C-alpha cells in the first residue's frame, strides 16, 4: 500500500582502506536481546565518534544492522509472516526475487566482503541459555577471534552466568547452507555467532556486560582503538557436539525447572519435573545424566513428549585455551 520497507544500518568509518566489522541482529523478529545489544553498541560508538569517551577512536569501518526482519519485529513474530519464511533460511537471497529474497540479498552483499562479522542470535525457541559463542568448523583464526570475544561478564559469576567463555561448534545440517552465518564462512569472513538469553525478552544487565566483550573484540580486530588499552584474550572452552548431552521429556506435560542455566551440575542433580496438567501428578523427574554445565533449559512450561528440556555441556574432551599473549 505504498509503505516503504527499509533495511537500516549504522556506520562508523575511519579512512577507506580499513578492515570492516559487520554486526547483524534481528534476523528473527523475536530476537530482542540482539536488538538491545546493538542499541547499546550504537550509543557507545556514537559517544566514541563525538569524543565523549576519551582515549577511544574509530580505526576501521563498523556497521551495525539492528533489525533485519522488520516485518516480524513489528508483528512480534519470529518469522517473515507474508511468506511464512524463516529469514535465516533464505541466504544469499536474490536481487531479482521476492521482497524477502531481495532483503536477504542486500544484507548479504553489504556484509559478505567484511573482514569480520558477528551475528547476534537468541536461544532456541522456548528456551533460555547462557550467552555463548558459536562457530562452524573453526580454524585457528576463528578460535583466536573467539578468545577475544570471550571473557568474564562482570556481575556474572557462578550465581549468574559463567562468562562468555563457552564456545560451541555448530553442526552443519542440509538447511544450514541457507543461513547467513554459513554464507559468511563460505565467503571467508571471520564470522562468529553470539547466542544466548531467551527469545522475546531482553536481559539488560547481561547485555550491558556483553557490550564490554564486543568492545574488546573490536579492539582486537582493529576497527576500534584506544590510546592505552589493548585487547585482552579471554579464557575460552571449546565444546563440540560430542560434548553436548540433551535431556528429553519422556512424558508430555508441564515442566517445572529446578536448576538454572549456567549452573555447574553434578550427575544426578535434579533439573526439574514434569507434571500432568489434569491431575497435577508428577509424571517424571529429570536429572543431570552426568557432571556438566547447564547450557540451555526449557523456559516455556508446556512440553511435548520427546522434547529436549535441557542441554548440558560435559567435559568429555575438554580443551583449555589460556590467554597466552
Amino acid at each position, binding site marked *: 500500500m505504498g509503505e516503504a520497507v527499509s533495511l537500516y544500518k549504522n556506520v562508523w568509518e575511519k579512512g577507506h582502506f580499513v578492515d570492516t566489522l559487520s554486526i547483524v541482529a534481528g534476523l528473527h523478529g523475536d530476537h530482542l536481546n540482539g536488538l538491545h545489544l546493538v542499541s547499546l553498541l550504537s550509543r557507545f560508538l556514537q559517544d566514541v565518534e563525538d569524543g565523549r569517551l576519551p582515549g577511544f577512536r574509530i580505526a576501521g569501518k563498523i556497521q551495525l544492522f539492528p533489525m533485519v526482519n522488520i516485518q516480524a519485529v513489528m508483528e512480534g513474530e519470529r518469522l517473515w509472516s507474508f511468506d511464512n519464511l524463516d529469514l535465516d533460511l533464505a541466504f544469499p537471497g536474490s536481487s531479482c526475487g521476492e521482497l524477502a529474497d531481495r532483503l536477504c540479498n542486500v544484507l548479504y552483499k553489504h556484509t559478505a566482503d567484511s573482514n569480520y562479522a558477528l551475528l547476534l542470535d537468541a536461544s532456541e525457541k522456548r528456551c533460555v541459555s547462557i550467552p555463548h559463542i558459536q562457530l562452524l568448523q573453526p580454524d585457528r583464526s576463528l578460535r583466536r577471534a573467539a578468545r577475544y570475544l570471550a571473557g568474564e561478564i562482570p556481575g556474572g559469576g557462578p550465581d549468574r552466568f559463567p562468562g562468555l567463555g563457552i564456545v560451541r561448534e555448530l553442526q552443519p*545440517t542440509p538447511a544450514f547452507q541457507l543461513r547467513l552465518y554459513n554464507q559468511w564462512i563460505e565467503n571467508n569472513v571471520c564470522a562468529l555467532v553470539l547466542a544466548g538469553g531467551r527469545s522475546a525478552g531482553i536481559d539488560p544487565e547481561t547485555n550491558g556486560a556483553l557490550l564490554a566483550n564486543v568492545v574488546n573484540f573490536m579492539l582486537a580486530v582493529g576497527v576500534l582503538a584506544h590510546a592505552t588499552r589493548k585487547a585482552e584474550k579471554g579464557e575460552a572452552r571449546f565444546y563440540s557436539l560430542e560434548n553436548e548431552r540433551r535431556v528429553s521429556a519422556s512424558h508430555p506435560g508441564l515442566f517445572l525447572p529446578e536448576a538454572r542455566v549456567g549452573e555447574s551440575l553434578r550427575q544426578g542433580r535434579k533439573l526439574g519435573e514434569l507434571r500432568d496438567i489434569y491431575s497435577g501428578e508428577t509424571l517424571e523427574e529429570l536429572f543431570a545424566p552426568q557432571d556438566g554445565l547447564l547450557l540451555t533449559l526449557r523456559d516455556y512450561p508446556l512440553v511435548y513428549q520427546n522434547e529436549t528440556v535441557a542441554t548440558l555441556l560435559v567435559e568429555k574432551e575438554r580443551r583449555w585455551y589460556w590467554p597466552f599473549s
Partner: protein
Amino acid sequence: MRTRSVVAYKGPSGASVEIVKQTFSSARPKPARRVSFLAGLHGDELEGVYLCFLLVQYLRRLKETEPGAFLGEVNVYPAVNPQALCHGSRLWPFFSVDMNRLMGEPAGNSLPAGACRELLADLKGCSDLAVDLHSSNQHLAELPQIRIVKDFEKKLLPLALQCNVDVIWVHPMAGVFESTLGYNLNRAKVPTLVMELGICLRIHRDFCSQILDGAIHLLHHAGVLNSSRRPRGEIKMPLVLKADQVGLVQAKRAGLFAGRVKLGDRVGKGDKIGDVVDPVRGETLEEVVSPFKGTIFTLRELPLIYEGAPLVRVALDGPDER
C-alpha cells in the same frame, strides 16, 4: 487396508498425535513393487490430502472387488504434518518449523527433526517409488505439474510422463532442496516425484480428479496394479520444460494485482495479464503485459504484492519466445 502409526508423540495435554500410513498389501507373497503417496508436509496444502482420500477410496473398493489386482503394495500417508493440518498452517505450529526444511537433520536436534527422521526412514523402508503431493502457497495457483531436479531427470522423467500432469519442469539443483523430503528420498535411491497442484487451503476438484487418474495410471505402469477395470482414458502429454523454457513475470511495483488471465490460458507477447493498482490513491501503477508467448502454468492469486512478486509463470512455446 492396514492402518499403522509411523510416528507418534503426545502433546502437553496428553493427547496423542500420530502420522498414519494406510497400506494396501500385495496379493502376491512378494510385492512386485511398492509405491508410496504422501501429502500434507505443509499443513495448509489440502489438494494432496483430498487426493489421498480419493486414492484410498478407490483402492479400498478395488481391494473389495478385485483383490487379485494388487500385484504390488501401495502406501498412503494422507497427513504427515497432522498438527499443521488441524491448524490449517503451512508450518508445524508450536515449533514454527517447516517440515520440508528439516529432512536429513540429526534426530536429536528437536522433536520435529526426530519426527522427520522417522518418517523418512519409514518411507525409505517401504517404497520403491514415492509421490510427494503439494499445493502452492497462499500466493500462487499452479496447474498440475511435477518438478524435477536436473540431477534426477533421467530416472524421474519417464515416471512423471505417466502422471497425467500438465507440466513437467526440470530445474537446476539449488541449496534449498537439500533439506526437502523429495531430494532426500531421491538421494536414497527411492525415485520420488514432487507434484504441485492448485493452491493451499482450497480443493480444486478437477485437478484432483485429473491427478487421481494419473496416480492410477502410474500404479498400473509401475506394475503395482493390474485391474480389469483400469480407466482407459488417455492421459495428458505434458509440456516438458527446461529451466530456460520458463518465463517469469514479476511485479515492478507494490500494490494490488488484479489479474485478467486464468491458469492454462495462452498468451502472446504484449498480451495484457492484469493491472497493479494503488487502492489508496485510485491509480493504476502498472499495466502488466506478457513479454512471452506460451501457456500460463502459475498464476498470482493473492492480490497483495510487493515489488518482485511473481505474477505468472509462462511455459514458453520455444526458446525464441523469451
